């Protein structure tokens, strides 16, 4: 493995940064990052890369893949390849936003509950237990159904079912960290509880949360697509991967309609999973394999 190579003791300070980066140079992380970077490029440059307008018909309907339409056309004659590229603009940023909000809300709630304890802790964590007792996709469906279909409603629904994961994780971290001596030392110099929490506890507990969030990114992309697939997320004309797959499902013999977005989704989900697993192996001592 690349991490096994040794460097000479007492190496000059310039190589220090390089040696700190070295553990991250593993095939999982590199491969995952490359694919993620490619998709980021697609998100930025979708307008340049896409050969056709994703919203307008650019040829006959239900055409098989050809030189003009690399992934064929859909029921309305729109170019599937272009729609797939534009679809990345919807699915990936929304999934990232969903996660960021869930992580921020969950970590805050978890950290406060863990540090202050008492009734607040009991109430908040029971609420988290209740939310987590439901299968997440079912609860998200129920919430979206109640709010009405739409990508933003799907976003709200996923945040609602997702924050408890990070709240629990963060609470556990804070509970074990708050007994550490450096925290007691901070209290003894007269630092207030909020400052102690955010200066001396939270920074130490972020690593597992970040690792967990990276691994969850794939799941969230799939959840958003699933809600759209069920007609609860993105609404028809917009090029969203889940919605595009729905369209492919009703035109079963035109295999290319669902294949494009399907492969796109598999590639990004796999890439972030590899990335997450790799990060966990490097950062999380408890699950380190070697």
């Amino acid at each position, binding site marked *: 493995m690349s991490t096994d190579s040794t460097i000479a003791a007492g190496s000059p300070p310039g190589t220090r940064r390089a040696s700190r980066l070295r553990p991250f140079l593993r095939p999982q992380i590199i491969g995952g990052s490359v694919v993620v970077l490619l998709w980021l490029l697609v998100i930025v440059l979708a307008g340049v890369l896409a050969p056709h307008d994703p919203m307008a018909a650019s040829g006959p309907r239900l055409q098989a893949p050809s030189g003009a339409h690399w992934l064929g056309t859909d029921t309305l004659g729109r170019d599937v390849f272009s729609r797939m590229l534009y679809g990345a603009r919807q699915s990936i940023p929304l999934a990232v936003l969903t996660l960021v909000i869930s992580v921020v809300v969950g970590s805050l709630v978890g950290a406060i509950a863990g540090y202050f304890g008492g009734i607040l802790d009991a109430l908040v964590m029971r609420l988290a237990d209740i939310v987590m007792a439901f299968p997440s996709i079912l609860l998200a469906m129920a919430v979206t159904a109640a709010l009405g279909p739409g990508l933003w409603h799907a976003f709200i629904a996923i945040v609602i079912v997702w924050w408890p994961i990070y709240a629990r994780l963060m609470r556990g971290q804070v509970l074990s960290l708050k007994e550490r*001596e*450096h925290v007691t030392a901070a209290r003894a110099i007269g630092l207030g509880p909020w400052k102690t929490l955010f200066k001396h506890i939270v920074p130490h507990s972020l690593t597992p949360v970040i690792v967990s969030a990276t691994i969850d990114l794939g799941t969230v992309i799939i959840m958003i697509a699933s809600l759209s697939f069920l007609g609860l997320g993105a609404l028809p004309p917009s090029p969203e991967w889940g919605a595009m797959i729905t369209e492919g499902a009703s035109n079963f013999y035109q295999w290319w309609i669902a294949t494009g977005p399907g492969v796109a989704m598999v590639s990004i989900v796999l890439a972030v999973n590899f990335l997450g697993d790799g990060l966990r192996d490097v950062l999380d001592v408890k699950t380190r394999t070697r």
Partner: protein
Amino acid sequence: MNPVTTNLLEIRDLSVVFRTSRGDVEAVRSASLSVAAGATVALVGQSGSGKSTLTSALNRLLAGNGRVTQGSVTFAGTDLLALSERQMSGIRGRQIGLVPQDPMSNLNPLLSVGRQISEVFTIHRVAGRTEARRRAIELLDMVGIPDAARRYGQYPHELSGGMRQRVLIAIGLACRPRLLIADEPTSALDVTVQKKILDELSSLTASMGTAVIMVTHDLALAAERADHVVVMNRGAIVESGPAAEVLKSPQDEYTRRLIAAAPSLTTKSLVSGPTEKDSAPLVEAAALTRDYPTRSGILGRAGTFRAVDKVSFRIPRGRTVGIVGESGSGKSTTARMILRLEDASAGDIYFRKDDVTRLSGRKLKSFRRQVQPVFQNPYAALDSRQTIGEAIREPLDVHEVGTPAQRGERVTLLLEQVALDPSYASRYPHELSGGQRQRVAIARALALEPELVVLDEAVSALDVLVQAQILELLVDLQARLGLSYLFISHDLAVVRMICHQIHVMKSGQVVESGTPEQIFENPQHEYTKTLLAAIPTGRP
């Protein structure tokens, strides 16, 4: 190649190298050592001196990145390094027993302790199941565990630290090995327990004719228990010889420093005796009590456990008051109450005649300025994400002392005060040694110019040489700044060196108080006497 020898174990020119990300590190450098049958050899050195590595190398239990680069290990005529892993397994446990260091983590929590002993017999096929059980109970009895048949079925968490260490000794001695390696067998235990266990260990090995290699950092203990003492420093054996000789006339410079630094009951006190008797005390604790709620049984009937029971004492200005006791005696809880990190259930704390027992908010914050702690573990007490400078500066920022520029100057001054170079300010804790970190912790405690510093086992985790330096620093700072100390420790020898007044605690109560002279030369309470008798004196 080897001459015929009468020694049970012969180690010749052994070197061990560990492969790390920073390159190869030589942990043991051409060490030679011999152990005669039935003899006890003590391997002494500071942490990182390579003593544990040496014993793991001879038992072929080195970590995956370690390897023997040269030398030989001959045990009872066989070259251990040439054996296959399978042959080695037949020797480990059967001919070479091992008592590991930490009784808390070296037993499997899911197996009863009896099973873990009888396992040794069944692994080496020396006894069947019922026979193994019978012999395990016999062993438990031999190592001094009362009611052995009942204890057989108990799990590690049901046993005290001392009991667990006895179980580990029973496992090590199960097959009547010819050699027993005891790696710091008692350093996690209280002194009184340590004495009992070492007594039992030596009488057992004597009756079985087992040779012992005892790894320890405690020179006095080594001299008291071993025939032969081997001193290691930075991977090399620097001195070896009969115990009494090494202690009396050490040849090597390092050994001499080690002996000089080791606190014993004959070490001279670092402080002068109490002078002014009845000037108003800085701190007065009056009948301080702390109860913890407990639950027992399925129904969880609530009870209380009294950790500290009506403890009263005074800390005069510019003096050091020591509290000694074993683990669980309530000494740390007392310290935490004085620091107001924990609330007293009853009783009062007066600070300069003001009652501070129930302060809160702003008044508590200004009280915290006056009373600062230094904790035991120099590795945990500093935030690993803060630089040394930030850590020392933090109390100044919290209390908004002076202008930001003045705070920066103060950090430099504080570092100089604890004899650290100001350039350390930009370093992180992991770049510093244990002793340096403890200096940083002291600098941080001094930042607010407190009147009282509470030192909770502040030197216990340090090697003796470093410990001596820190103690001198503390005494020096007290003389220069007029500080008062509350010094909590389990180590009577250290307390004797630094304290003006001593309180002995047992089960939450102060059982005896007095000056060091009174306590050490004329102890009144039975418990104090036991405690004093248990300290290794260095005389065999």
